[in-house]
């Protein structure tokens, strides 16, 4: 397979978003508010990490330097990670986790939907499988929004606070650069400009029904896509990577 630096970069973005969010979600394992929810979060985390595995494996193949998905996940520093900052923020309380999950799931739904028809058939295959999975995720997280927003005073307050804190990380989801533009021309990237209005309309409808107030747009330049991250990612990675780094090449 011919090396395409843009496609490699793009696959890292897709893989890292899901790896980091999957890890954050997995931090709930054994700590969920009820048993069913604990299992649900662990299952969704597993799907996300599975998707990340496939995207990163393909990234390594496209790069052509012999790196596999494990090397990419465990032996890159934070500065080499390409995820959006939204997904690396600490898991917070349950409302924060679920509101973030909902914001991301709707985004991921549209991205994977488009990528199913990518020219690169391997990318299309991973997207098609992921799209089936995200349909379950988006149903799950969207069900929690009215439950929290239109629940008790306490749950409403927590959901609103989560939304207020998360909103400034949204513009980064839809920012496009040369990598996106080049790959859209090649038929291998999602056109985020067409996704943003759909995302907004779905989010607005669900949040409004949940009696939550949509915060004002905030201009903030988060640039995780070029490796600039919050301090939280480094801490998360040190935990995520320690076993692989302490025992290189170890197998079960």
């Amino acid at each position, binding site marked *: 397979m011919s090396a395409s630096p843009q496609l490699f970069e793009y696959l890292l973005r897709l893989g890292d978003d899901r790896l980091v969010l999957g890890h954050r979600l997995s931090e709930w394992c054994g700590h969920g508010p009820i048993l*069913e929810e604990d*299992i649900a979060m662990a*299952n969704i985390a597993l799907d996300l990490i599975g998707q990340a595995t496939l995207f990163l494996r393909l990234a390594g193949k496209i790069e052509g330097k012999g790196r596999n998905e494990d090397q990419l996940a465990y032996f890159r520093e934070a500065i080499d990670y390409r995820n959006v900052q939204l997904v690396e923020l600490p898991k917070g309380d349950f409302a924060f986790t679920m509101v973030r999950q909902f914001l991301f799931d709707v985004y991921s739904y549209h991205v994977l939907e488009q990528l199913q028809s990518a020219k690169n058939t*391997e990318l299309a*295959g991973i997207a098609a499988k992921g799209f089936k*999975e995200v349909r379950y995720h*988006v*149903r*799950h997280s969207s069900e929690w929004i009215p439950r929290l927003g239109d629940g008790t005073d306490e749950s409403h307050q927590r959901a609103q606070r989560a939304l207020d804190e998360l909103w400034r990380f949204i513009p980064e989801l839809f920012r496009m650069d040369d990598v996106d533009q080049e790959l859209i021309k090649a038929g291998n990237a999602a056109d985020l400009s067409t996704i943003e209005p759909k995302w907004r309309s779905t989010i607005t409808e669900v949040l409004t029904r949940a009696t939550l107030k949509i915060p004002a747009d905030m201009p903030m330049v988060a640039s995780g896509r070029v490796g600039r991250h919050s301090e939280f990612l480094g801490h998360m990675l040190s935990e995520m990577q320690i076993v692989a780094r302490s025992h290189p090449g170890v197998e079960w």
Partner: protein
Amino acid sequence: MVITREGLLELLRDVKDPELPMLDVVELGIVRDVEIDADRVRIDITPTYSGCPALQVIEREIETTVRSAGFDDVTVNTVLFPPWTTDWVTPEAKDKMREAGIAPPREVSSARGIEELVGIRRAAPNVECPWCGSSDTVQKSAFGSTACKAIHFCNSCRQPFDYFKAF
């Protein structure tokens, strides 16, 4: 060593899904294709869920099974497209699921859009109870003991049961 396509598929029926030990990888639709070229054997398989932990075990099992039948040159190849769907699970396999107390997957419904997926109220899928056949059932959780199953409850016989999600 010579083997026919049918013979190889029959051999692969010895490989069971570790999480659904009553089912083999052929009837689950995990084995996509086989190719035999003299004494070289290639088996195409497809992952069910991206993060399904059973897949690595299955891959190893397939290789071991075919090797122990006398083939040294075995390749297990992962095919991602088109993605696996529960529509490929055979009717016989669905019967076996029912016998094991798991409601089998229904036909994958034509894709519902995002508006419907995020709707506040939606009719819970009325999955038939594998124990008593009643349709008076309710979904308790979309995520169950494994990635592929949901937890349902039968209001008629008052039993919980797994539903293999249509996927």
